[in-house]
């Protein structure tokens, strides 16, 4: 493991008089940035999950019925992730049309997912499951809300990349943005699947 090799170097004797060529990872900076950020988001949702389990153990917890619409939303989010992956592959092959189609479909599906989530909120509300009626409802609204906000943040990045593409930027120029969007989408899909699983199991 290179991390152990790094940590066991003796800087006071080794390589004296040498300039090491290594500085930074070979990964692009934007990717490192995204990975660290995903670590932070993991911490947010991990802690929410822990709180969910702790709170669930109390007597007043009543499981929330799972609206059928959530299955549809999940399918839409999976499709959104798949189409963005398609855009990412097209970008690596420098196929502008593919990138355009993939980006557009991915973004539209993500919007559809968010609208779907809002509809789920309205459905639950009309059935009397308000945010304050039971802790399981509170957690559901909180988790879906935070997840939606993160996706909305991703859509800002998606929007900026799309605008650049439609204004005629070369595919190579926005390749990194497309790739980062796709990775972020996959991550949020994973988070959603875990959260949805949590809702189904409990």
């Amino acid at each position, binding site marked *: 493991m290179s991390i152990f*090799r*790094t*940590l*066991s*170097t*003796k*800087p*006071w004797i080794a*390589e*004296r*008089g*040498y*300039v*090491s*060529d*290594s*500085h*930074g*990872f070979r990964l692009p*900076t934007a990717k*490192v*940035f995204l990975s*660290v*950020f995903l*670590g*932070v988001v993991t*911490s*947010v949702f991990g*802690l*929410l999950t822990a*709180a969910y389990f*702790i*709170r669930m153990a*109390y*007597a*007043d*917890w009543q499981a929330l019925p799972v609206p059928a619409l959530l299955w549809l939303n999940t399918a839409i989010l999976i499709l959104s992730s798949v189409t963005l992956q398609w855009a990412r592959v097209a970008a690596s092959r420098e196929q502008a049309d593919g990138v355009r189609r993939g980006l557009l479909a991915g973004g539209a599906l993500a919007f559809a997912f968010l609208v779907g989530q809002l509809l789920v909120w309205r459905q639950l509300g009309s059935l009397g499951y308000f*945010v*304050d009626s039971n*802790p399981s409802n*509170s*957690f559901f609204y*909180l988790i879906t809300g*935070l997840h939606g906000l993160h996706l909305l943040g991703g859509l800002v990045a998606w929007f900026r990349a799309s605008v650049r593409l439609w204004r005629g930027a070369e595919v190579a120029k926005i390749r990194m943005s497309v790739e980062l969007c796709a990775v972020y989408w996959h991550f949020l899909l994973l988070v959603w699947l875990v959260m949805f699983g949590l809702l189904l199991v409990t």
Partner: protein
Amino acid sequence: MALTDVTHDAQDFVPAVEVEEVELYHPKTWLGKYVFSQDAKIIALQYSITAMAVGLLALVLSVLMRIQLAWPGALSFITPDAYIQFVTMHGMIMVIYLLTALFLGGFGNYLIPLMLGARDMVFPYVNMISYWVYLFAVLLLLASFFTPGGPTGSGWTLYPPQAILPGTPGSGWGITLMVISLVFFVIGFTMGGLNYVVTVLQARTRGMTLMRMPLTIWAIFTATVLALLAFPALLVSCIMMSLDNLLGTSYFMPAIVSLGQQLDYSGGSPVLFQHLFWFFGHPEVYIVALPAFGIVSDLLSVHARKNIFGYRLMVWAIVVIGGLSFVVWAHHMYVSGMNPYFGFFFATTTLIIAVPTAIKVYNWVLTLWRGNIRLTVPMLYAIGFVFTFINGGLTGIFLGNVIVDVPLSDTYFVVAHFHMVMAVSPILAVFGAVYHWYPKITGRMLNEGLGRFHFWVTFVGLYCLYYPMHYLGILGVPRRYFSNVGPNGLPDFIPDSAQFVNIWITIAAICVASSQLVFLYNLFASATRGKPAGGNPWGATTLEWQTTNTPPTHGNFGKELPSVYRWAYDYSVPGAEEDFIPQNVPAGKNTGQAS
């Protein structure tokens, strides 16, 4: 790791650094240069000045609290409500808005790019936004002083249910603004923190391997990683608390009767809040302690003209302390009613932290051992830090054990412990760092005489202040009480001697607080009238002292970034011409090393 051999001949041309050039944003207006600046150095100053200004407010609050304790009723505007509001705001401001912001936003921004040989942070725009979000959070916090009911008086731990119930001062506007301010603080910090971490990982100059980084950078880096992973706990608990407060959910709020009314809450768990809060709160201790560790390591090495003892162990200790800090949080909750078996686990992990911490202390002492110690003002502060940190650490061993902690809980012993370990120690490191780096920031030295005066009054004063507090705590004097005297004006439930100690502590506190005016005067006066410092007044090896201009200009270094040939601690190398060899000097005749 690929190495380039540059040693055939000292005259050999070493190719320029092949670091991706950061595209620097060059502002054209005064506003863009000094206010909405994207230069990490300006952002650092903005962070530091804001943090110190709000810290000054917290200092005044603490003096007011002390006056009330020594001479109850002397200041008529200090009502019981106001007193507990002062306690809360003092704690919250000092821990989060002063220390965290100053160490990471201030020193992190200033030192990371300079010490690593980078032109700037990797994302300067995000860095700028980070400061403005932080400022917004500070303004929200200050705004709560002017709301009906005033700021929250729930204690800095914001424990529900009392934090949001009527009866606690500031239960309406105060607590709402407090948690919103914290949410913004976390968002702003995350933007800055991502920058610090990615800059350390990606923007080091050529030759600056991880194990050649100065310990200050290692410490700030690790503290930032801790903060990025721990602040989400604060974010989540603040959001959940404000939903309990505003929408009537019951995450934390149990079924409760308040002022004779059955409230709508039911079944929530206040202990859940405590778990979340301390999952953030304990790493927070190390978020402010680790940068202090790193800074002190560097100050000791520079001013003792000796390499740091056990560099590798120092790095490992920082990383291990960082890791351990995530598995000790419930030692703040021994009396919360959690499962007693947890106490056993958390006491064990807590005491294990003593191992890497002791390694650091031994290494600091061994660095001083037979060093060519120069008792400059920064050195005085660094040595003061080591003393104070050992003291605070020792009482930590008391409090880490469940059976000792239970009777000492909520007494002045706890107050004395955490002030020694995470208030006095880090602030001594801050002062040391300011005296050390001020010449680089302004190009002028701080006044030495005033600095010594400031040090001795602060150091001796703080011991007069906090040492007796331990005895008060062992005596059982409870913390957060508005007054210890009864209606007849005499000490009520504490002995007269304890009240005398209270008066003594207050006098010490007033002395320490007023001596900070000397420091402020020194900061302002020396900026224009101080002795010119030159580029490297302390004879230090790290890259920030090797810049072409002092203070460093936009872009930090000249046309080419420096190449790094050695670690940061080549002091008093045998055979070398001077007693330090800067990191960017290759082996050659002046270094006493074969070229």
